[in-house]
């Protein structure tokens, strides 16, 4: 993406996040598409591109993307299935923008839907059977336990910063009618600190709860947005992504993430510095991921993320609002649609439609994605999207 604001996001949709809601990914996807059509007033026939995230609930079906087109009555001239885990949401926008610029399609539904908590998590295979499962590392929780322990060793980590993040996000979730009902109760810093360890030093309240849900945005060229009479639009102006950061190194520093590459790339493209960011919607599978994200993108020095959090008002009224719908940790993680949760909130804020939690002067927003847990490394995919007003 280049700075010229030639690509526009003109609509968004989101289902409530539910725990074992029992509706399929197709049903959830349908609800989001209907919302977007209603909101934009655009005819379904205008959608000629689909950029859809992989799921946990439907991943055993290799035709999930094409089947969704059949289910929703879409006939796209360009279709993309994004397997970047929690990075698929904003990765789907970047790919849609490229396809639009290449003339493959004009109007793309960027969609994510997953009924993970209502189904079975599929097997990820490969080396896991031989070199992971016999040890008993507890999936992402265990991997973040290792990451967090090493981080604490190298830099120290003030638990009060994690507690503050937990409380800030929870207060936002209380204002989000789409948040998971089970999580919609007040939380104190003392509650966080008393939360039991699941894979020490990771606590229960450091982690997401896997739920069901769907979200999406509608992307087109700015020119086409005007032709369609879009009521509102914002623009993706910077994007960076990296998969398997430090992948050929055998002993990489696991405290450093791919955001050290993706962050500066996105900012450079947007012609911005971290201090120019009005609000941030970081991917939050674990609270410490937010701290590492802030450091590696350049909001503060490496190792100073906790201090930055303690020194910064990250509430929706603050100087750097954070995950104003509660993030995945307090609104619930709708499976592999989780990457879209904070994305949609960023778009909603910039459209000025966040009601009780509206950020004033929502001139820009940074959204990040994290995907996939590897063996003995930092996370698998890091990506950063910067959105700006017209």
């Amino acid at each position, binding site marked *: 993406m280049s700075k010229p604001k030639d690509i526009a996001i003109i609509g968004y949709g989101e289902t409530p996040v539910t725990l074992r809601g029992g509706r399929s990914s197709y049903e959830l996807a349908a609800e989001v598409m209907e919302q977007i059509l209603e909101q934009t007033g655009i005819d379904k026939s205008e959608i000629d591109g689909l950029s859809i995230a992989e799921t946990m609930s439907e991943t055993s079906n290799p035709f999930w993307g094409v089947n969704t087109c059949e289910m929703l009555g879409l006939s796209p001239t360009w279709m993309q299935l994004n397997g970047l885990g929690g990075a698929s949401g904003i990765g789907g926008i970047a790919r849609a923008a490229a396809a639009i610029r290449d003339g493959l399609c004009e109007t793309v539904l960027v969609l994510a839907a997953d009924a993970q908590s209502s189904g079975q998590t599929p097997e990820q*295979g490969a080396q896991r059977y031989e070199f992971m499962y016999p040890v008993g590392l507890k999936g992402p929780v265990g991997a973040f336990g290792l990451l967090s*322990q090493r981080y604490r060793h190298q830099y120290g980590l003030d638990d009060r910063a994690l507690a503050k993040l937990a409380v800030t996000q929870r207060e936002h979730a209380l204002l989000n009618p789409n948040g998971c009902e089970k999580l919609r109760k007040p939380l104190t810093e003392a509650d966080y600190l008393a939360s039991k*360890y699941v894979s020490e030093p*990771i606590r229960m309240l450091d982690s997401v709860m896997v739920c069901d849900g769907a979200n999406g945005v509608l992307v087109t060229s700015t020119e086409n947005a005007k032709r369609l009479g879009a009521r509102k639009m914002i623009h993706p102006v910077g994007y960076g992504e990296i998969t398997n950061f430090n992948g050929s190194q055998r002993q990489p520093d696991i405290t450093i993430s791919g955001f050290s590459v993706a962050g500066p790339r996105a900012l450079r493209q947007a012609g911005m510095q971290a201090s120019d960011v009005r609000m941030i919607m970081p991917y939050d599978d674990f609270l410490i991921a937010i701290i590492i994200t802030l450091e590696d993108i350049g909001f503060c020095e490496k190792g100073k993320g906790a201090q930055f959090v303690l020194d910064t008002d990250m509430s929706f009224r603050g100087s750097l609002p954070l995950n104003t719908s509660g993030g995945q940790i307090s609104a619930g993680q709708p499976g592999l649609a989780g990457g879209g949760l904070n994305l949609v909130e960023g778009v909603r804020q910039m459209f000025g439609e966040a009601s009780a939690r509206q950020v004033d002067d929502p001139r820009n927003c940074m959204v990040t994605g994290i995907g996939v847990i590897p063996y003995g490394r930092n996370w698998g995919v890091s990506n950063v999207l910067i959105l700006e007003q017209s």
Partner: protein
Amino acid sequence: MSQASKHPARPLPKPNAYMDTTPFWQAANNGKLMIQYCRDTGEPQFFPRPISLANGRRNLEWREVSGKGTVYSFTNTFSAWAGHEDRTPYLCALVELEEGVRILCNLYEVKAEDVKIGMPVVLQWERLSDDIQYPAFVPANR
């Protein structure tokens, strides 16, 4: 392991699930820890892969390593991975072998509060079945 357990059994490795790892498991069963080396660059790597991470060629060989290392990081597991419920709490660690690779393993014969990052550890095999020994580590200075 308790015979009365209501949980699934601890998962045994499934050799050769994604590539030929027979040399690793045969050696392990005989008490030898083998890892891959790139013949072109001399670089070691772990876990086993079908290609050299160093140069993208398949000119690899297996070599026995010392089994000496240090703790790179660790986590005390209270919420078990499926099949490990009867073991909680248990320690998982990334151990850095002196040859320069990291291995995900269990730590035994040490309490969680006594584990220190950088602590020297040595290999101790854990027999999981008649055919499978699994590499675990214990403190070098017990």
